[in-house]
């Protein structure tokens, strides 16, 4: 599916081509039919109406929730319960009927959009109803558990109706429940039974709940939300580890290294074909293929890789500061460190960490071509290439340097130097890739990284100005030398026949 901005541009250009006589009116019509240029304006209007109706649903839902919270006594308990249950079933049913009846039409009509808004309102009414019963029976549990149960209910409806909007709402609810629960956990508040288990295993729970939904809805937004949920909750567990323990216990070292390498490694190796294969394998006994097998499946790898690069950049940037290598000055006794690890043990001994680690290895093996064409690995799927090797080398370098620094001998000078080198490599590599592929985002991320690196180094070192000046001079010469070498390299590439078929046939 081409983007809307491309279609708008195409409409403008095609009209000009027709004016200039480059294409005939019939050809213009063919283009217009192929890219549905006539529907561009109505599509924008329809989407605006859909957003307004959904927003109205959200506001009405908040109104209902606030009404419950007011605990107004003029309405007897029984009437309140019946009213809210009737509202819950009525709104959901009306929403579903409208949504369904408007579905067959091309692009959906007003009924589908209004139905969609009502379904969102229905999802919020579910929360209001849950809250009402909690209030009537004076339940002591915090709002965290309530949000998670509510989110589970909404995720069910999102699967049933394949609605991205409900999936996102469910993701936000589960996320809200998770962070409220963490706050209660930190402040030692009342927890519902099983809540601590849920908080601990949130990386797995979020993955199992939302990754299939992202594929089912073919929604990149849902995939992004899933990735954030899985890895932020995983880091929440790692975050409890005190860096001061690393000199004394190997476990803490391994866990801290995993903090910096596991998320980017996992996301970089993320393979849609592997996950779709697993999904198909699990679905096969049910004999169910879904209702849109003719459409191409979702492709989340680019998004996963964007996340991986972003995570990697932030990690490497933190370690490019000299102070981050001097922090571990306090060395507690081994007993103190073990005691500390024992305190965070419930967090790090969760099942999620080993499962994610195994999946990480499986994904890299799959990327390296293992597993053959199991589950119909798409033939054109990307195989292990130079880029994968580079990322793997960077991750390996991070792991090795951190391991030596934290468990053998501190490497303040070498560590700072290597991570600055890695940061430069990342920034320059991103700019190069971005220019090569014409992807603006990569180019700008690379440029921001390089600028940040230079600015940070200028501001970080205030003494040894002669040395600082020398370093910058050497770096400047080095960068120019690389640029010139690259220029020559490209020219040799261009001169070397045969680069591409078209180049070969070029008469000049």
């Amino acid at each position, binding site marked *: 599916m081409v983007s809307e901005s491309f279609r708008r541009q195409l409409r403008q250009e095609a009209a000009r081509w027709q004016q200039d006589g480059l294409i005939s009116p019939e050809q213009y019509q063919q283009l217009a039919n192929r890219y549905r240029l006539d529907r561009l304006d109505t599509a924008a209007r329809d989407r605006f109406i*859909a957003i307004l109706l*959904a927003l109205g649903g959200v506001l009405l839902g908040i109104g209902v*929730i606030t009404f*419950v*919270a*007011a*605990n*107004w*006594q003029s309405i007897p308990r029984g009437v309140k319960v019946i009213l809210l*249950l009737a509202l*819950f*079933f009525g709104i*959901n*049913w009306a929403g*579903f009927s409208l949504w*369904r009846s408007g*579905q*067959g*039409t*091309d692009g*959906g009509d007003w009924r*589908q959009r209004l139905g969609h808004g009502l379904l969102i309102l229905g999802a919020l009414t*579910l*929360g*209001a*109803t*849950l*809250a009402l*019963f*909690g*209030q*009537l*029976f*004076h*339940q*002591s*549990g915090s*709002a965290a558990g*309530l949000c998670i*149960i*509510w989110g*589970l*209910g909404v995720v*069910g*409806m999102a*699967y*049933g*109706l*394949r*609605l*991205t*909007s409900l999936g996102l709402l469910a993701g936000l609810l589960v996320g809200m429940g998770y962070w409220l629960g963490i706050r209660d956990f930190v402040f*030692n508040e*009342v*927890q519902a*039974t099983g809540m601590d288990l849920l908080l601990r295993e949130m990386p797995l729970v979020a993955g199992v709940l939302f990754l299939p939904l992202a594929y089912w809805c*073919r929604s990149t937004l849902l995939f992004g939300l899933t990735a954030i949920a899985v890895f932020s909750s995983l880091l929440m567990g790692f975050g409890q580890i005190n860096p001061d323990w690393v000199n004394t216990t190997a476990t803490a070292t391994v866990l801290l290294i995993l903090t910096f390498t596991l998320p980017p490694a996992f996301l970089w190796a993320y393979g849609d074909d592997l996950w779709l294969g697993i999904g198909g394998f699990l679905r096969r006994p049910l004999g169910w293929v879904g*209702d*849109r097998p003719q*459409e191409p499946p979702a492709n989340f790898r680019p998004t996963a890789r964007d996340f991986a690069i972003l995570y990697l950049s932030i990690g490497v940037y933190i370690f490019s500061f000299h102070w981050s290598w001097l922090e571990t000055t306090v060395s507690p006794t081994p007993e103190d460190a073990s005691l500390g690890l024992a305190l965070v043990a419930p967090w790090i001994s969760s099942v999620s960490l080993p499962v994610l680690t195994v999946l990480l290895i499986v994904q890299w093996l799959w990327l390296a071509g293992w597993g053959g064409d199991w589950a119909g690995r798409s033939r054109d799927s990307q195989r292990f290439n130079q880029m994968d090797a580079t990322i793997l080398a960077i991750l390996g370098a991070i792991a090795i340097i951190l391991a030596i620094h934290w468990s053998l001998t501190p490497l303040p000078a070498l560590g700072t130097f290597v991570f600055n080198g890695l940061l430069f490599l990342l920034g320059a590599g991103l700019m190069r890739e971005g220019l090569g592929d014409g992807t603006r985002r990569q180019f700008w991320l690379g440029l921001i990284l390089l600028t940040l690196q230079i600015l940070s180094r200028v501001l970080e070192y205030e003494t040894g100005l002669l040395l600082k000046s020398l370093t910058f001079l050497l770096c400047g010469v080095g960068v120019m030398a690389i640029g010139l070498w690259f220029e020559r390299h490209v020219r040799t590439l261009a001169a070397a026949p045969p680069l591409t078929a078209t180049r070969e046939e070029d008469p000049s």
Partner: protein
Amino acid sequence: MTPSRSARRAIAPWRFWLPLGFQAVLILLLPAQALYTQAVGTPVVLQTAPVDPYDFLRGYYVTLNYDISIPRNLAELPGWEAIAPAEDPDNPTAALAADTPIYVVLEPPAGDANRPEGSQPAPWMPVRVSGDRPTDLTASQIALRGTYQNGRILYGLERYYIPEDQRQEINDRIQAAQQSDNPEAYVVEVKIDSMGRSLPIRIWVEGEAYRF
């Protein structure tokens, strides 16, 4: 949001009804148990301290703290030694792990049967504690189930939701009752079922009952 395809089949109704049924189960799960406790539970009165925090979903509530929420008060009762063998008398919960169940056996106050209808009841007295659900209770006794968490014992009776428009009045009265010399001016009536599960029913402040 919803992808559009003209050649799209109408969605099967079960794909709506199944999740809706699941949501209905989630809604009814909580009241089902609470209704059971409320219907068959024994009314019990507990000695209770208040603030009025706000929960964005369920509104304002009174935080209830009971005499039996404080481990020190229970450590003097028979049976505590078996739950948490005390090495240090000043720290009776040292041996307790989080989520340890604690059953508190309660007995009605003397003369409770002769209390005039509608007057404020006196609180029940804890007589012993146990780690397992006691089966040898006398006819008047009842066991209340709690769990140990972070230096307190929680019974699921820690919140009483109140209407927004009456919260000032209720708070003022509770404060007055707590400043008075009579600690029994502020008690909570709860219901406890045979499994020890409990539900707050009403709060009594200086002779007046509030039920929401």
